Protein backbone atom coordinates (compact mmCIF):
# COMPACT_ATOMS: atom_id res chain seq x y z
CA UNK A 1 0.00 0.00 0.00
CA UNK A 2 2.64 2.55 0.98
CA UNK A 3 5.91 3.14 -0.77
CA UNK A 4 8.71 3.55 1.73
CA UNK A 5 12.04 5.12 0.86
CA UNK A 6 15.26 4.62 2.79
CA UNK A 7 14.91 7.90 4.61
CA UNK A 8 11.39 7.09 5.59
CA UNK A 9 12.46 3.72 6.88
CA UNK A 10 14.88 5.35 9.34
CA UNK A 11 12.08 7.37 10.84
CA UNK A 12 9.90 4.30 10.77
CA UNK A 13 12.49 2.38 12.79
CA UNK A 14 12.75 5.10 15.44
CA UNK A 15 9.03 5.14 15.68
CA UNK A 16 8.82 1.39 15.84
CA UNK A 17 11.23 1.36 18.76
CA UNK A 18 9.20 3.91 20.64
CA UNK A 19 5.74 2.50 20.17
CA UNK A 20 6.55 -1.15 20.12
CA UNK A 21 8.03 -3.17 17.30
CA UNK A 22 5.31 -5.76 17.26
CA UNK A 23 2.40 -3.77 15.94
CA UNK A 24 4.61 -1.54 13.87
CA UNK A 25 5.65 -4.54 11.81
CA UNK A 26 2.05 -5.60 11.50
CA UNK A 27 0.98 -2.18 10.30
CA UNK A 28 4.08 -1.01 8.45
CA UNK A 29 2.38 -0.53 5.11
CA UNK A 30 0.38 2.30 6.61
CA UNK A 31 3.44 4.32 7.57
CA UNK A 32 5.31 6.89 5.62
CA UNK A 33 7.45 9.69 7.00
CA UNK A 34 5.10 12.46 6.00
CA UNK A 35 2.03 10.63 7.15
CA UNK A 36 3.66 9.79 10.48
CA UNK A 37 4.55 13.42 11.08
CA UNK A 38 0.99 14.50 10.27
CA UNK A 39 -0.51 11.80 12.48
CA UNK A 40 1.80 12.52 15.42
CA UNK A 41 1.18 16.25 15.30
CA UNK A 42 -2.56 15.71 15.05
CA UNK A 43 -2.39 13.34 18.02
CA UNK A 44 -0.42 15.86 20.10
CA UNK A 45 -3.03 18.52 19.34
CA UNK A 46 -5.96 16.29 20.27
CA UNK A 47 -4.91 13.94 23.08
CA UNK A 48 -7.88 11.69 22.56
CA UNK A 49 -6.93 10.84 18.97
CA UNK A 50 -5.53 7.44 18.11
CA UNK A 51 -2.28 7.75 16.13
CA UNK A 52 -2.67 4.42 14.40
CA UNK A 53 -6.23 5.14 13.35
CA UNK A 54 -5.17 8.47 11.87
CA UNK A 55 -2.33 6.77 10.03
CA UNK A 56 -4.63 4.23 8.46
CA UNK A 57 -7.16 6.83 7.43
CA UNK A 58 -4.38 8.92 5.92
CA UNK A 59 -3.01 5.89 4.09
CA UNK A 60 -6.45 5.10 2.69
CA UNK A 61 -7.14 8.64 1.57
CA UNK A 62 -3.65 9.03 0.07
CA UNK A 63 -4.17 6.07 -2.23
CA UNK A 64 -6.31 8.25 -4.38
CA UNK A 65 -3.81 11.07 -4.51
CA UNK A 66 -0.71 8.95 -5.04
CA UNK A 67 1.00 9.10 -8.41
CA UNK A 68 1.77 6.32 -10.84
CA UNK A 69 4.65 5.85 -13.23
CA UNK A 70 4.00 4.95 -16.83
CA UNK A 71 6.29 4.09 -19.71
CA UNK A 72 5.06 5.65 -22.94
CA UNK A 73 6.45 3.38 -25.65
CA UNK A 74 6.62 5.20 -28.95
CA UNK A 75 5.96 3.12 -32.04
CA UNK A 76 6.90 4.91 -35.23
CA UNK A 77 6.97 4.17 -38.94
CA UNK A 78 9.91 4.59 -41.29
CA UNK A 79 7.92 6.12 -44.15
CA UNK A 80 6.70 9.02 -42.07
CA UNK A 81 10.25 10.09 -41.36
CA UNK A 82 11.54 9.66 -44.92
CA UNK A 83 8.68 11.82 -46.25
CA UNK A 84 9.57 14.73 -43.98
CA UNK A 85 11.56 17.76 -45.10
CA UNK A 86 14.37 19.04 -42.95
CA UNK A 87 12.19 21.84 -41.58
CA UNK A 88 9.43 19.35 -40.77
CA UNK A 89 11.86 17.08 -38.95
CA UNK A 90 13.00 20.04 -36.84
CA UNK A 91 9.41 20.93 -36.05
CA UNK A 92 8.54 17.35 -35.01
CA UNK A 93 11.68 17.09 -32.89
CA UNK A 94 10.79 20.30 -31.07
CA UNK A 95 7.43 18.78 -30.15
CA UNK A 96 9.22 15.70 -28.81
CA UNK A 97 11.51 17.98 -26.84
CA UNK A 98 8.47 19.72 -25.35
CA UNK A 99 7.10 16.39 -24.06
CA UNK A 100 10.56 15.59 -22.69
CA UNK A 101 10.61 18.91 -20.85
CA UNK A 102 7.15 18.42 -19.33
CA UNK A 103 7.06 18.41 -15.56
CA UNK A 104 5.42 14.96 -15.63
CA UNK A 105 8.32 13.44 -17.57
CA UNK A 106 10.95 11.82 -15.39
CA UNK A 107 12.97 10.07 -18.09
CA UNK A 108 13.08 8.87 -21.66
CA UNK A 109 15.32 8.20 -24.63
CA UNK A 110 15.19 8.15 -28.38
CA UNK A 111 16.42 4.84 -29.80
CA UNK A 112 18.58 4.35 -32.89
CA UNK A 113 16.95 2.91 -36.00
CA UNK A 114 15.70 -0.70 -35.67
CA UNK A 115 18.32 -1.82 -38.23
CA UNK A 116 20.92 -1.03 -35.58
CA UNK A 117 19.38 -3.57 -33.20
CA UNK A 118 20.99 -6.86 -32.17
CA UNK A 119 18.77 -9.55 -30.70
CA UNK A 120 20.19 -12.11 -28.33
CA UNK A 121 18.71 -15.40 -27.16
CA UNK A 122 20.44 -18.12 -25.23
CA UNK A 123 19.53 -21.57 -26.51
CA UNK A 124 21.03 -24.63 -24.85
CA UNK A 125 23.56 -22.40 -23.11
CA UNK A 126 24.80 -20.86 -26.35
CA UNK A 127 24.29 -17.35 -27.66
CA UNK A 128 21.91 -17.13 -30.57
CA UNK A 129 22.40 -13.70 -32.05
CA UNK A 130 20.30 -12.21 -34.84
CA UNK A 131 20.89 -9.02 -36.73
CA UNK A 132 17.84 -6.78 -36.30
CA UNK A 133 14.99 -6.13 -33.87
CA UNK A 134 13.11 -8.82 -31.93
CA UNK A 135 9.98 -8.25 -34.02
CA UNK A 136 10.18 -7.16 -37.65
CA UNK A 137 7.20 -4.98 -38.46
CA UNK A 138 6.23 -1.76 -40.13
CA UNK A 139 6.01 -0.06 -36.74
CA UNK A 140 9.10 -0.16 -34.57
CA UNK A 141 9.90 0.96 -31.05
CA UNK A 142 11.48 4.34 -31.62
CA UNK A 143 11.87 5.52 -28.05
CA UNK A 144 10.10 5.98 -24.75
CA UNK A 145 9.25 8.41 -22.02
CA UNK A 146 8.90 7.62 -18.36
CA UNK A 147 6.25 9.80 -16.76
CA UNK A 148 4.91 10.31 -13.24
CA UNK A 149 1.21 11.26 -13.21
CA UNK A 150 -1.91 10.72 -11.06
CA UNK A 151 -3.74 8.28 -13.34
CA UNK A 152 -4.30 6.81 -16.78
CA UNK A 153 -6.26 9.83 -17.98
CA UNK A 154 -3.31 12.07 -17.20
CA UNK A 155 -0.95 9.60 -18.90
CA UNK A 156 -3.16 9.63 -22.00
CA UNK A 157 -3.09 13.42 -22.01
CA UNK A 158 0.73 13.33 -22.20
CA UNK A 159 0.68 10.52 -24.77
CA UNK A 160 -1.62 12.53 -27.03
CA UNK A 161 1.08 15.18 -27.36
CA UNK A 162 3.66 12.74 -28.70
CA UNK A 163 3.90 13.38 -32.47
CA UNK A 164 3.94 9.68 -33.45
CA UNK A 165 0.43 9.19 -31.98
CA UNK A 166 -1.22 11.23 -34.73
CA UNK A 167 1.35 10.62 -37.45
CA UNK A 168 1.17 7.00 -38.48
CA UNK A 169 2.49 5.53 -35.25
CA UNK A 170 1.05 4.63 -31.85
CA UNK A 171 1.87 5.09 -28.19
CA UNK A 172 1.67 2.11 -25.88
CA UNK A 173 0.94 3.24 -22.32
CA UNK A 174 2.34 0.77 -19.81
CA UNK A 175 2.13 1.22 -16.05
CA UNK A 176 5.40 0.57 -14.26
CA UNK A 177 5.44 -2.01 -11.46
CA UNK A 178 5.87 -0.12 -8.21
CA UNK A 179 8.33 -1.72 -5.82
CA UNK A 180 8.77 -1.03 -2.17
CA UNK A 181 12.44 -0.12 -1.75
Amino acid sequence: MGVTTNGEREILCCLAASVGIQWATAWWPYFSARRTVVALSLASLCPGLDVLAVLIVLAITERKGSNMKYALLIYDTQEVWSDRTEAEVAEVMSRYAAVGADSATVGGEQLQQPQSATTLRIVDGRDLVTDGPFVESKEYLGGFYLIDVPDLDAAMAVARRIPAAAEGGAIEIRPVVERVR
Partner: protein
Amino acid sequence: MIEAIFREEWGRLVASLCRVLGDFDLAEDAAQGAFEAAARHWPRDGVPDNPRAWLLTTARRKAIDELRRVKRLTVGVSEARLDSESELTKGDVQIALHSEQPTVPDGRLELIFACCHPALAREAQVALVLRSLVGMSTAEIARAFLVSEETMKRRLTRAKTKLRTAGIPFEQPRSEDLDTRLEAVLSVIYLLFNAGYAGRGDLADRAIWFARVMTALLPHVSKIHGLLALMLFHESRRDARVIDGAFVPLPEQDRARWDYRMIDEAKERLERALSSRESSTYTIQAQIAAEHCREVVDWHRIVALYTDLQQLLDSDIVTLNKAIAVAHTESPDSALQMIEDLNLPNYHYLHSTRGELLHHLGRTAEARAEFNLARELADSELDRTFLAKRLQQLPDVRGDNPHIDKGDVI
Protein backbone atom coordinates in the same frame (compact mmCIF):
# COMPACT_ATOMS: atom_id res chain seq x y z
CA MET B 1 -39.48 -4.22 -1.07
CA ILE B 2 -36.05 -5.51 -0.09
CA GLU B 3 -35.37 -6.41 -3.70
CA ALA B 4 -36.18 -2.86 -4.80
CA ILE B 5 -33.78 -1.45 -2.21
CA PHE B 6 -31.10 -3.87 -3.36
CA ARG B 7 -31.49 -2.85 -6.95
CA GLU B 8 -31.34 0.82 -6.14
CA GLU B 9 -28.57 0.65 -3.56
CA TRP B 10 -26.11 -1.87 -4.99
CA GLY B 11 -24.37 0.50 -7.40
CA ARG B 12 -24.27 3.32 -4.86
CA LEU B 13 -22.75 1.04 -2.25
CA VAL B 14 -20.09 -0.41 -4.55
CA ALA B 15 -19.27 3.09 -5.74
CA SER B 16 -18.77 4.61 -2.31
CA LEU B 17 -16.76 1.60 -1.17
CA CYS B 18 -14.54 1.79 -4.26
CA ARG B 19 -13.88 5.40 -3.44
CA VAL B 20 -12.72 4.72 0.08
CA LEU B 21 -10.96 1.43 -0.53
CA GLY B 22 -9.61 2.01 -4.02
CA ASP B 23 -10.07 -1.69 -4.69
CA PHE B 24 -12.82 -3.09 -6.83
CA ASP B 25 -12.79 -6.67 -5.59
CA LEU B 26 -12.72 -5.68 -1.96
CA ALA B 27 -15.56 -3.20 -2.51
CA GLU B 28 -17.66 -5.79 -4.29
CA ASP B 29 -17.08 -8.51 -1.71
CA ALA B 30 -17.89 -6.12 1.12
CA ALA B 31 -21.08 -4.98 -0.66
CA GLN B 32 -22.04 -8.59 -1.26
CA GLY B 33 -21.47 -9.36 2.41
CA ALA B 34 -23.60 -6.41 3.50
CA PHE B 35 -26.45 -7.43 1.20
CA GLU B 36 -26.31 -10.99 2.46
CA ALA B 37 -26.47 -9.69 6.04
CA ALA B 38 -29.44 -7.50 5.08
CA ALA B 39 -31.21 -10.48 3.52
CA ARG B 40 -30.77 -12.31 6.81
CA HIS B 41 -31.64 -9.49 9.23
CA TRP B 42 -34.23 -7.33 7.51
CA PRO B 43 -37.00 -9.90 7.06
CA ARG B 44 -36.69 -10.68 10.77
CA ASP B 45 -35.95 -7.26 12.31
CA GLY B 46 -37.62 -5.05 9.74
CA VAL B 47 -36.00 -2.70 7.23
CA PRO B 48 -33.93 -0.04 9.03
CA ASP B 49 -34.94 3.63 8.80
CA ASN B 50 -31.92 4.45 6.71
CA PRO B 51 -31.12 1.32 4.73
CA ARG B 52 -28.37 3.08 2.78
CA ALA B 53 -26.43 3.98 5.93
CA TRP B 54 -27.04 0.52 7.39
CA LEU B 55 -25.63 -1.15 4.28
CA LEU B 56 -22.65 1.19 4.14
CA THR B 57 -21.79 0.69 7.80
CA THR B 58 -22.06 -3.08 7.50
CA ALA B 59 -20.04 -3.16 4.29
CA ARG B 60 -17.32 -0.95 5.78
CA ARG B 61 -17.01 -3.33 8.73
CA LYS B 62 -16.76 -6.28 6.40
CA ALA B 63 -14.11 -4.51 4.34
CA ILE B 64 -12.05 -3.67 7.40
CA ASP B 65 -12.35 -7.26 8.65
CA GLU B 66 -11.14 -8.45 5.28
CA LEU B 67 -8.25 -5.97 5.22
CA ARG B 68 -7.20 -7.18 8.64
CA ARG B 69 -7.47 -10.81 7.59
CA VAL B 70 -5.27 -10.20 4.55
CA LYS B 71 -2.76 -8.25 6.65
CA ARG B 72 -2.60 -11.09 9.13
CA LEU B 73 -1.99 -13.61 6.36
CA THR B 74 0.72 -11.58 4.69
CA VAL B 75 2.48 -10.29 7.77
CA GLY B 76 1.88 -13.36 9.90
CA VAL B 77 0.62 -11.72 13.08
CA SER B 78 -0.56 -14.18 15.69
CA GLU B 79 -4.23 -14.43 16.61
CA ALA B 80 -3.61 -13.34 20.17
CA ARG B 81 -2.08 -10.05 19.17
CA LEU B 82 -4.91 -9.27 16.80
CA ASP B 83 -7.32 -9.03 19.69
CA SER B 84 -5.52 -6.05 21.14
CA GLU B 85 -5.27 -4.54 17.67
CA SER B 86 -8.93 -4.83 17.04
CA GLU B 87 -9.34 -2.31 19.85
CA LEU B 88 -7.09 0.04 18.00
CA THR B 89 -8.81 -0.34 14.67
CA LYS B 90 -12.20 0.40 16.12
CA GLY B 91 -11.05 4.00 16.11
CA ASP B 92 -10.42 3.68 12.42
CA VAL B 93 -13.91 2.35 11.83
CA GLN B 94 -15.37 5.24 13.78
CA ILE B 95 -13.36 7.85 11.95
CA ALA B 96 -14.04 6.34 8.55
CA LEU B 97 -17.73 6.10 9.30
CA HIS B 98 -18.14 9.51 10.87
CA SER B 99 -16.31 11.25 8.08
CA GLU B 100 -18.94 10.23 5.56
CA GLN B 101 -21.99 9.44 7.59
CA PRO B 102 -24.11 12.61 7.27
CA THR B 103 -24.41 12.59 3.51
CA VAL B 104 -23.05 9.67 1.58
CA PRO B 105 -21.73 11.12 -1.66
CA ASP B 106 -23.04 9.41 -4.75
CA GLY B 107 -19.98 7.95 -6.41
CA ARG B 108 -21.88 6.15 -9.13
CA LEU B 109 -20.88 8.51 -11.89
CA GLU B 110 -17.20 7.95 -11.10
CA LEU B 111 -17.84 4.22 -11.03
CA ILE B 112 -19.67 4.29 -14.37
CA PHE B 113 -16.94 6.30 -16.06
CA ALA B 114 -14.29 3.97 -14.68
CA CYS B 115 -16.15 0.87 -15.90
CA CYS B 116 -16.68 2.40 -19.35
CA HIS B 117 -13.14 3.74 -19.69
CA PRO B 118 -11.95 3.49 -23.31
CA ALA B 119 -8.85 1.64 -22.11
CA LEU B 120 -11.16 -1.34 -21.46
CA ALA B 121 -12.49 -3.52 -24.27
CA ARG B 122 -16.21 -3.09 -24.91
CA GLU B 123 -17.08 -6.55 -23.61
CA ALA B 124 -15.11 -5.82 -20.45
CA GLN B 125 -16.97 -2.52 -20.01
CA VAL B 126 -20.31 -4.25 -20.37
CA ALA B 127 -19.45 -7.01 -17.90
CA LEU B 128 -18.12 -4.54 -15.33
CA VAL B 129 -21.18 -2.31 -15.54
CA LEU B 130 -23.53 -5.24 -15.11
CA ARG B 131 -21.61 -6.55 -12.14
CA SER B 132 -20.74 -3.37 -10.27
CA LEU B 133 -23.50 -0.93 -11.11
CA VAL B 134 -26.47 -3.12 -11.96
CA GLY B 135 -25.54 -5.82 -9.47
CA MET B 136 -26.13 -8.87 -11.64
CA SER B 137 -24.27 -11.99 -10.56
CA THR B 138 -21.49 -13.42 -12.69
CA ALA B 139 -23.73 -16.37 -13.54
CA GLU B 140 -26.55 -14.08 -14.67
CA ILE B 141 -24.22 -12.03 -16.86
CA ALA B 142 -22.76 -15.20 -18.35
CA ARG B 143 -26.25 -16.45 -19.23
CA ALA B 144 -27.20 -13.12 -20.80
CA PHE B 145 -24.16 -13.21 -23.07
CA LEU B 146 -24.33 -16.91 -23.83
CA VAL B 147 -20.92 -17.76 -22.42
CA SER B 148 -19.97 -20.12 -19.63
CA GLU B 149 -19.80 -18.80 -16.09
CA GLU B 150 -16.10 -19.65 -16.07
CA THR B 151 -15.49 -17.49 -19.14
CA MET B 152 -17.40 -14.56 -17.67
CA LYS B 153 -15.53 -14.91 -14.39
CA ARG B 154 -12.22 -14.74 -16.23
CA ARG B 155 -13.41 -11.74 -18.25
CA LEU B 156 -14.40 -9.88 -15.08
CA THR B 157 -11.17 -10.74 -13.30
CA ARG B 158 -9.12 -9.53 -16.25
CA ALA B 159 -11.13 -6.32 -16.44
CA LYS B 160 -10.73 -5.62 -12.73
CA THR B 161 -7.02 -6.30 -12.90
CA LYS B 162 -6.74 -3.83 -15.74
CA LEU B 163 -8.76 -1.26 -13.78
CA ARG B 164 -6.37 -1.58 -10.89
CA THR B 165 -3.01 -1.88 -12.62
CA ALA B 166 -3.58 0.58 -15.45
CA GLY B 167 -4.45 3.39 -13.07
CA ILE B 168 -7.94 3.99 -14.45
CA PRO B 169 -9.21 6.80 -12.22
CA PHE B 170 -12.38 6.68 -10.12
CA GLU B 171 -13.13 10.21 -11.11
CA GLN B 172 -15.27 12.14 -13.47
CA PRO B 173 -13.47 12.77 -16.74
CA ARG B 174 -11.77 16.07 -17.38
CA SER B 175 -14.08 18.40 -19.24
CA GLU B 176 -12.15 18.06 -22.51
CA ASP B 177 -12.61 14.26 -22.38
CA LEU B 178 -16.20 14.31 -21.17
CA ASP B 179 -17.85 14.01 -24.55
CA THR B 180 -15.94 10.98 -25.79
CA ARG B 181 -16.17 9.33 -22.39
CA LEU B 182 -19.91 9.90 -22.29
CA GLU B 183 -20.25 8.48 -25.79
CA ALA B 184 -18.64 5.25 -24.52
CA VAL B 185 -21.13 5.02 -21.64
CA LEU B 186 -24.07 5.57 -23.99
CA SER B 187 -22.76 2.88 -26.36
CA VAL B 188 -22.63 0.42 -23.47
CA ILE B 189 -26.22 1.27 -22.52
CA TYR B 190 -27.45 0.88 -26.08
CA LEU B 191 -25.53 -2.35 -26.54
CA LEU B 192 -27.23 -3.75 -23.44
CA PHE B 193 -30.58 -2.61 -24.73
CA ASN B 194 -30.03 -4.24 -28.10
CA ALA B 195 -28.96 -7.48 -26.47
CA GLY B 196 -32.23 -7.35 -24.52
CA TYR B 197 -34.15 -6.43 -27.65
CA ALA B 198 -32.77 -9.53 -29.32
CA GLY B 199 -34.47 -11.48 -26.56
CA ARG B 200 -31.78 -11.93 -23.93
CA GLY B 201 -33.15 -11.86 -20.41
CA ASP B 202 -34.15 -8.57 -18.95
CA LEU B 203 -31.20 -6.65 -20.34
CA ALA B 204 -33.50 -4.11 -22.00
CA ASP B 205 -34.99 -3.30 -18.59
CA ARG B 206 -31.54 -2.99 -17.09
CA ALA B 207 -30.42 -0.69 -19.89
CA ILE B 208 -33.43 1.58 -19.36
CA TRP B 209 -32.76 1.61 -15.63
CA PHE B 210 -29.11 2.48 -16.30
CA ALA B 211 -30.12 5.32 -18.64
CA ARG B 212 -32.50 6.66 -15.98
CA VAL B 213 -29.63 6.66 -13.47
CA MET B 214 -27.53 8.58 -15.98
CA THR B 215 -30.25 11.16 -16.61
CA ALA B 216 -30.55 11.66 -12.86
CA LEU B 217 -26.80 12.07 -12.46
CA LEU B 218 -26.26 14.27 -15.51
CA PRO B 219 -29.66 15.91 -16.08
CA HIS B 220 -28.29 18.67 -18.30
CA VAL B 221 -26.86 16.32 -20.95
CA SER B 222 -29.57 16.21 -23.59
CA LYS B 223 -28.42 13.17 -25.53
CA ILE B 224 -28.90 10.88 -22.54
CA HIS B 225 -32.58 11.89 -22.55
CA GLY B 226 -32.54 11.20 -26.29
CA LEU B 227 -31.18 7.70 -25.75
CA LEU B 228 -33.69 7.01 -22.99
CA ALA B 229 -36.53 8.21 -25.23
CA LEU B 230 -35.31 5.98 -28.06
CA MET B 231 -35.23 2.92 -25.84
CA LEU B 232 -38.62 3.67 -24.31
CA PHE B 233 -40.23 3.99 -27.75
CA HIS B 234 -38.87 0.60 -28.76
CA GLU B 235 -39.70 -1.01 -25.44
CA SER B 236 -43.29 0.30 -25.54
CA ARG B 237 -43.94 -1.99 -28.50
CA ARG B 238 -42.48 -5.07 -26.91
CA ASP B 239 -45.77 -6.91 -26.41
CA ALA B 240 -46.92 -6.20 -29.95
CA ARG B 241 -43.64 -7.10 -31.63
CA VAL B 242 -43.68 -10.82 -31.09
CA ILE B 243 -46.82 -12.90 -31.48
CA ASP B 244 -46.70 -16.71 -31.39
CA GLY B 245 -42.93 -16.79 -31.68
CA ALA B 246 -42.83 -14.70 -34.82
CA PHE B 247 -41.72 -11.14 -35.33
CA VAL B 248 -44.52 -8.74 -36.30
CA PRO B 249 -43.48 -5.76 -38.45
CA LEU B 250 -44.53 -2.37 -37.21
CA PRO B 251 -47.32 -1.58 -39.69
CA GLU B 252 -48.99 -4.89 -38.88
CA GLN B 253 -48.75 -4.55 -35.10
CA ASP B 254 -51.83 -4.38 -32.93
CA ARG B 255 -51.58 -0.87 -31.50
CA ALA B 256 -53.75 -1.80 -28.55
CA ARG B 257 -50.81 -3.84 -27.34
CA TRP B 258 -48.48 -0.83 -27.19
CA ASP B 259 -47.62 0.60 -23.79
CA TYR B 260 -48.92 4.16 -24.06
CA ARG B 261 -47.63 5.20 -20.65
CA MET B 262 -44.17 4.35 -21.81
CA ILE B 263 -44.76 6.22 -25.06
CA ASP B 264 -45.84 9.31 -23.11
CA GLU B 265 -42.69 9.15 -21.04
CA ALA B 266 -40.63 8.69 -24.20
CA LYS B 267 -42.24 11.79 -25.69
CA GLU B 268 -41.44 13.82 -22.58
CA ARG B 269 -37.84 12.65 -22.64
CA LEU B 270 -37.59 13.44 -26.32
CA GLU B 271 -38.87 16.95 -25.73
CA ARG B 272 -36.28 17.38 -23.05
CA ALA B 273 -33.57 16.18 -25.44
CA LEU B 274 -34.78 18.53 -28.17
CA SER B 275 -34.86 21.53 -25.83
CA SER B 276 -31.14 21.94 -26.36
CA ARG B 277 -29.89 22.63 -29.85
CA GLU B 278 -27.23 20.01 -29.57
CA SER B 279 -28.03 17.19 -31.97
CA SER B 280 -27.17 13.55 -31.39
CA THR B 281 -27.63 10.29 -33.23
CA TYR B 282 -29.75 8.94 -30.38
CA THR B 283 -32.07 11.93 -30.33
CA ILE B 284 -32.64 11.78 -34.09
CA GLN B 285 -33.36 8.07 -33.90
CA ALA B 286 -35.82 8.77 -31.08
CA GLN B 287 -37.51 11.36 -33.31
CA ILE B 288 -37.83 8.73 -36.02
CA ALA B 289 -39.24 6.23 -33.53
CA ALA B 290 -41.73 8.88 -32.35
CA GLU B 291 -42.82 9.47 -35.94
CA HIS B 292 -43.53 5.75 -36.34
CA CYS B 293 -45.92 5.93 -33.36
CA ARG B 294 -48.23 8.39 -35.09
CA GLU B 295 -51.61 7.37 -36.43
CA VAL B 296 -50.57 8.43 -39.92
CA VAL B 297 -46.83 8.18 -40.46
CA ASP B 298 -45.27 11.19 -42.19
CA TRP B 299 -42.69 9.51 -44.43
CA HIS B 300 -41.36 12.79 -45.79
CA ARG B 301 -40.47 13.79 -42.27
CA ILE B 302 -38.77 10.45 -41.72
CA VAL B 303 -36.71 10.85 -44.88
CA ALA B 304 -35.65 14.32 -43.65
CA LEU B 305 -34.67 12.91 -40.23
CA TYR B 306 -32.58 10.19 -41.86
CA THR B 307 -30.86 12.88 -43.90
CA ASP B 308 -30.04 14.66 -40.62
CA LEU B 309 -28.79 11.40 -39.18
CA GLN B 310 -26.52 10.86 -42.18
CA GLN B 311 -24.82 14.16 -41.36
CA LEU B 312 -23.74 12.73 -38.01
CA LEU B 313 -23.37 9.09 -38.92
CA ASP B 314 -22.75 8.15 -42.49
CA SER B 315 -23.23 4.41 -42.50
CA ASP B 316 -24.71 1.92 -44.95
CA ILE B 317 -27.26 0.87 -42.35
CA VAL B 318 -28.59 4.42 -42.15
CA THR B 319 -28.87 4.49 -45.95
CA LEU B 320 -30.73 1.19 -45.90
CA ASN B 321 -33.25 2.56 -43.39
CA LYS B 322 -33.61 5.77 -45.32
CA ALA B 323 -34.30 3.77 -48.49
CA ILE B 324 -37.31 2.16 -46.80
CA ALA B 325 -38.75 5.60 -46.13
CA VAL B 326 -37.94 6.66 -49.67
CA ALA B 327 -39.92 3.66 -50.93
CA HIS B 328 -42.95 5.38 -49.37
CA THR B 329 -42.23 8.94 -50.50
CA GLU B 330 -40.97 8.14 -54.00
CA SER B 331 -41.13 4.57 -55.22
CA PRO B 332 -39.81 1.09 -54.41
CA ASP B 333 -37.74 1.46 -57.57
CA SER B 334 -35.74 4.46 -56.30
CA ALA B 335 -35.33 2.73 -52.93
CA LEU B 336 -33.94 -0.32 -54.69
CA GLN B 337 -31.45 1.88 -56.54
CA MET B 338 -30.35 3.50 -53.27
CA ILE B 339 -29.39 0.21 -51.71
CA GLU B 340 -27.84 -1.33 -54.79
CA ASP B 341 -24.24 -0.58 -53.81
CA LEU B 342 -24.44 -1.01 -50.05
CA ASN B 343 -21.62 -2.98 -48.57
CA LEU B 344 -23.39 -5.01 -45.90
CA PRO B 345 -22.33 -8.59 -46.41
CA ASN B 346 -24.33 -11.13 -44.42
CA TYR B 347 -26.71 -8.47 -43.12
CA HIS B 348 -30.04 -10.25 -43.43
CA TYR B 349 -32.12 -7.06 -43.19
CA LEU B 350 -30.57 -5.88 -46.46
CA HIS B 351 -31.90 -8.98 -48.22
CA SER B 352 -35.30 -8.92 -46.55
CA THR B 353 -35.63 -5.23 -47.53
CA ARG B 354 -34.71 -6.08 -51.10
CA GLY B 355 -37.22 -8.90 -50.98
CA GLU B 356 -40.00 -6.53 -49.88
CA LEU B 357 -39.14 -3.93 -52.50
CA LEU B 358 -38.91 -6.47 -55.33
CA HIS B 359 -42.19 -7.96 -54.17
CA HIS B 360 -43.83 -4.53 -54.35
CA LEU B 361 -42.53 -4.21 -57.90
CA GLY B 362 -44.11 -7.56 -58.75
CA ARG B 363 -40.75 -9.27 -59.27
CA THR B 364 -41.82 -12.27 -57.21
CA ALA B 365 -39.12 -14.73 -58.23
CA GLU B 366 -36.32 -12.33 -57.33
CA ALA B 367 -38.12 -11.43 -54.09
CA ARG B 368 -38.30 -15.09 -53.16
CA ALA B 369 -34.56 -15.52 -53.70
CA GLU B 370 -33.81 -12.52 -51.45
CA PHE B 371 -36.15 -13.74 -48.67
CA ASN B 372 -34.53 -17.15 -48.82
CA LEU B 373 -31.09 -15.63 -48.49
CA ALA B 374 -32.28 -13.44 -45.60
CA ARG B 375 -33.68 -16.48 -43.84
CA GLU B 376 -30.37 -18.28 -44.15
CA LEU B 377 -28.51 -15.30 -42.69
CA ALA B 378 -30.99 -14.44 -39.93
CA ASP B 379 -29.55 -14.88 -36.46
CA SER B 380 -32.73 -15.14 -34.44
CA GLU B 381 -35.55 -17.63 -34.45
CA LEU B 382 -38.08 -14.77 -34.43
CA ASP B 383 -36.73 -13.40 -37.70
CA ARG B 384 -36.51 -16.84 -39.29
CA THR B 385 -40.11 -17.61 -38.41
CA PHE B 386 -41.20 -14.24 -39.74
CA LEU B 387 -39.30 -14.71 -43.01
CA ALA B 388 -40.68 -18.22 -43.47
CA LYS B 389 -44.16 -16.76 -43.14
CA ARG B 390 -43.32 -14.03 -45.66
CA LEU B 391 -42.14 -16.63 -48.11
CA GLN B 392 -45.35 -18.57 -47.72
CA GLN B 393 -47.49 -15.52 -48.30
CA LEU B 394 -45.40 -14.29 -51.17
CA PRO B 395 -47.43 -14.76 -54.34
CA ASP B 396 -50.38 -12.64 -53.27
CA VAL B 397 -49.42 -10.69 -50.15
CA ARG B 398 -48.60 -7.02 -50.21
CA GLY B 399 -46.86 -6.02 -47.02
CA ASP B 400 -44.54 -3.48 -45.67
CA ASN B 401 -40.93 -3.89 -44.87
CA PRO B 402 -40.21 -6.16 -41.96
CA HIS B 403 -37.56 -4.22 -40.20
CA ILE B 404 -38.75 -0.65 -39.93
CA ASP B 405 -39.91 -1.45 -36.44
CA LYS B 406 -36.59 -0.42 -35.06
CA GLY B 407 -34.50 1.09 -37.78
CA ASP B 408 -31.42 0.32 -35.77
CA VAL B 409 -28.34 2.05 -37.05
CA ILE B 410 -25.65 1.63 -34.43
